[in-house]
């Protein structure tokens, strides 16, 4: 199993040293200087130089800038016209997962067939768009690309259609042939232009390709259309009227399997045998001897392989040959018999001249009912996991894939869905579809989702909100915390404190809320006033998220109360802040200093109890300081402490007197 080597255009190992790093869906290749200049640079340094694109001067040659390449495995997801395919099929996939499992038997099968048809119509719609794009573009390279895509999509639809007939619908002998005929008519369209040409000409029977078109109709089992054309020939050529009548009659009488169960297979077989013998008789009587065209048609009707093979160019493919053969020799073919006919048809058709192509091998595997082989071959040939992932999922819903576990634990369906969804995640917008696919992978889906979702670049807040919502709905708390932290950090760096707080509230991240409050308090200490009052004044219940935040809110409230001259309440609040230990120790000095003007008021505000409390706080603060030496050296600090002690003592004196006299009177 060799993977073809991929060439990164522009990266030349002979001129520059290359290093690489694996990403979730990409490989980063960069040019470095590592190992060049005598290995004196550390690896980190060299890599850093390469990545920042700095000019690198070495002793060896002229300085040049370094480049970084991003190598992506999955190019298909970036094709604009395929986006419709991914989006619509996501909708169908979700519908299938959610559909009623209780429906049993026929109705469930009908439902699954409808899903399959929906997928196919999406492929066809995409093909149309791609075709339009190919026709309207003027860039030949793009045109080539689009045309290739059209043929790939067409092949996908061909394979899917066959799988639908054989596996999903599991057509039985009888209807099987009809479905196969429809399939061939839909997909072998090389002859369509010829048909159109002849039909639209003035006298079709005179057209040189007339008989080719009649043959095409007969080969595809389109009896009515063949008879219609033949009638034109008959009217133009009265001498062959007799022959024409017989042939027309034979073609009209040909027994074909019906869709409804109006006749059993045995009945059909009997009728068919009878008709076959009649045709044989006419041929052997030499009825058509004078007209080689009609004779060859009669031979085809008899299922003569050589006669059919003569019309190789009109059939263009071996599977057309197969179906024609079946139509005229074994119309009641059973599904399990198909493999024999398929193999021999392919051998006869290709005749050793050409070898089968990958598409042929896939179809052969389908005819042989080797589902796993089909999926395996498709995975190898197609460049994108879309097809195999969705087809396998559908087949799994039809309960057709035994859960044969692959050696790393998950089953085939899950493996393919995981691969497909992982590919989607490397796209800046289609990752949202990938989430739903992971949800429906029971074993590893969640783990994959957890790993991928953290790596989505969050360029705007709206995108971050969408990612967060996805994580929250799936109880991925780690990821919620991590993403909110990233967004909050970004906001903090941009000085958007309100946004940062809003993110920490969402994640219920107390630690970050503390960080933000510290920032506010720091700003206050530096500037002497609060920034972003609209935020602090309106914290509401979110204040309770962290102690520091509560302190911030309450401290601001203290300032407000002071501003409104509601001193007793302000005093009480201030004291609570200290005694209830909501305030951080570093802030106690500031709080005590804030108490100073209250102590100095004309009116006594603090009661005796409160003053004792304040004194205790002050002593705690000064006593608790281990480095008494440093404290005493700082003049400002000592002055403050002195002033506080004085004010407290004075207040105590006044309040004792006041309280004593109140009690007295």
């Amino acid at each position, binding site marked *: 199993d060799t993977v073809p080597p991929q060439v990164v255009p522009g990266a030349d190992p002979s001129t520059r040293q290359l290093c690489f790093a694996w990403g979730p869906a990409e490989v980063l290749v960069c040019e470095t200087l590592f190992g060049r200049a005598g290995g004196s640079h550390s690896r980190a340094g060299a890599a850093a130089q390469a990545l920042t694109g700095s000019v690198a001067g070495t002793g060896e040659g002229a300085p040049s800038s370094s480049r970084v390449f991003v190598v992506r495995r999955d190019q298909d997801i970036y094709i*604009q016209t395929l*986006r*419709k395919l991914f*989006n619509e099929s*996501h*909708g169908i996939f*979700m*519908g299938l997962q959610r559909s009623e499992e209780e429906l049993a038997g026929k109705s469930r099968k009908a439902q699954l067939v409808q899903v399959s048809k929906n997928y196919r119509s999406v492929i066809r719609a995409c093909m149309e768009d791609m075709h339009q794009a190919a026709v309207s573009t003027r860039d030949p390279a793009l045109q080539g690309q689009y045309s290739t895509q059209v043929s790939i999509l067409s092949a996908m639809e061909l394979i899917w259609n066959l799988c639908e007939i054989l596996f999903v619908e599991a057509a039985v002998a009888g209807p099987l042939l009809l479905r196969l005929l429809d399939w061939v008519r839909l997909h072998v369209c090389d002859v369509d232009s010829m048909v159109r040409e002849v039909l639209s000409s003035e006298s079709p029977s005179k057209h040189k390709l007339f008989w080719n078109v009649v043959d095409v109709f007969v080969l595809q089992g389109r009896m009515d259309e063949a008879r219609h054309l033949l009638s034109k020939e008959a009217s133009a050529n009265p001498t062959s009227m007799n022959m024409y009548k017989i042939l027309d009659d034979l073609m009209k009488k040909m027994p074909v399997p019906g869709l409804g169960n109006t006749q059993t297979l045995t009945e059909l077989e009997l009728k068919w045998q009878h008709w076959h013998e009649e045709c044989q008789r006419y041929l052997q009587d030499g009825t058509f001897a004078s007209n080689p065209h009609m004779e060859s048609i009669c031979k085809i009707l008899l299922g003569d392989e050589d006669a059919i093979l003569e019309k190789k160019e009109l059939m263009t493919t071996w599977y057309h040959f197969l179906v024609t053969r079946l139509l005229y020799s074994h119309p009641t073919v059973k599904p399990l018999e198909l493999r024999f006919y398929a193999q021999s048809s392919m051998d006869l058709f290709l005749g050793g001249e050409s070898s089968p192509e990958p598409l042929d091998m896939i179809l052969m595997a389908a005819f042989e009912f080797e589902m796993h082989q089909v999926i395996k071959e498709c995975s190898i040939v197609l460049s994108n996991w879309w097809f195999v992932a969705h087809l396998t999922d559908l087949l799994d819903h039809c309960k057709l894939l035994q859960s044969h576990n692959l050696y790393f634990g998950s089953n085939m369906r899950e493996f393919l869905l995981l691969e497909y969804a992982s590919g989607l995640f490397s796209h*800046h*917008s289609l990752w*949202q*579809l990938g989430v*739903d696919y992971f949800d429906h992978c029971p074993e590893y889906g969640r783990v994959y989702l957890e790993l991928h979702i953290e790596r989505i670049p969050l*360029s*705007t*807040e*709206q*995108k971050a*909100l*969408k990612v967060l*919502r996805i994580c929250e*709905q799936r109880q991925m708390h780690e990821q919620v915390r991590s993403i909110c932290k990233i967004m909050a950090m970004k906001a903090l*760096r*941009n*000085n*958007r*404190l*309100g*946004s940062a*707080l*809003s993110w920490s*509230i969402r994640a219920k991240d107390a630690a970050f809320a503390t960080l933000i409050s510290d920032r506010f308090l720091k700003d206050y200490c530096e500037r002497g006033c609060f*920034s*972003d009052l*609209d*935020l602090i004044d*309106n*914290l*509401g*219940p*979110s204040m309770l998220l962290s102690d520091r935040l509560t302190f911030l809110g309450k401290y601001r409230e203290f300032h407000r109360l002071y501003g409104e001259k509601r001193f007793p309440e302000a005093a009480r609040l201030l004291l609570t802040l200290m005694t209830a230990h909501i305030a951080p120790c570093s802030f106690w000095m500031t709080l005590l200093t804030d108490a100073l003007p209250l102590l100095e008021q004309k009116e006594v505000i603090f009661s005796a109890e409160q003053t004792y409390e304040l004194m205790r706080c002050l002593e705690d603060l000064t006593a608790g300081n281990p480095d008494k030496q440093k404290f005493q050296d700082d003049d400002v600090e000592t002055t403050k402490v002195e002033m506080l002690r004085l004010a407290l003592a004075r207040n105590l004196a006044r309040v004792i007197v006041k309280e004593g006299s109140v009690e007295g009177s």
Partner: protein
Amino acid sequence: QDNRISIWSAGDLGNAGLSGDYHGEPHLLCDIQHNGDVMDMQFLDQERIVVASSTGTVTIFRHHQNNQTLSANHRWEKAHYHVDQDTSCGGAACTGVVCNNPEIVTVGEDGRINLFRADQKDAVRTIANADSSTLHAVTFLRTTEILTVNSIGQLKIWDLRQQRNEPSQIFSLAGDRVPLHCVDRHPNQQHIVATGGQDGMLSIWDIRQGTMPVSLLNAHEAEMWEVHFHPSDPDHLFTCSEDGSLWHWDTSANVSEKPSFLHQGGRSTAYLSHSTINQSVVSAWLSNDPTKDRMEITNLIPNQTLSVNSLDVLGPCLVYGTDAEAIYVNRQLFA
């Protein structure tokens, strides 16, 4: 990334068949490249569209109807930006734009409010740091006043005539400060404002009174991205959300009860007492009596999968776009 501004034709009414339905799909008329995600856009006049970008740029595009092309008419680069020492180009997403020809107001993740005029190169007025959190949406309250909502659950009124950089009024939700994502004003009764929050809750405010919403309606299960009153039929309100649903709120049943003196029974008297407040017909949005509220709420999306990011409504037409990269047009809204 390849983001484009596109103009679509949703079908010509003249081609309506016998039943009056037009079954054609919208088809693309023209498009143009756009730098960054399109965060918000609005028609300035018949030909010009103002677009807000995630790069912080605000652009006016002109739609040339004669040859069906789009061209960029005017651009205000760096309308919104972060002041960051580390990065040189700290663009901040512009989250909302509202127009009242020729004035354009934009708000962004940088908490900035800009007032532009369509013909002037520089901003007429900028309120930097108007908000410490992200401003999610803006709408006009009156010609000189705007409403903004932010990510700490506040609804603010700004008077653009005044020079000070403070809001003239702040409203906030009680309880948790859930971020508000969208805002719209009642087309006729300018005191009625609707906002949608991150928890999917629809709040109706009466800005004449109080600082808290009049009613809170539990709506969606995830962020409500947009809320719109129907411009000509304001008894109808539309909201869309991250949970993939689009709800049609219909209070027209309430208002059809006109006070009638011939009407017997206690019901009409209760209604009349309402009407003694200055208006003859009280808007159903402000009444919060659950026994009388006959609000019909319908989810207009049958199989919801991915988020509905944006909607707009005009006359009988509703258009909305989803994260599944699909646009839906409903041309018979009230059929």
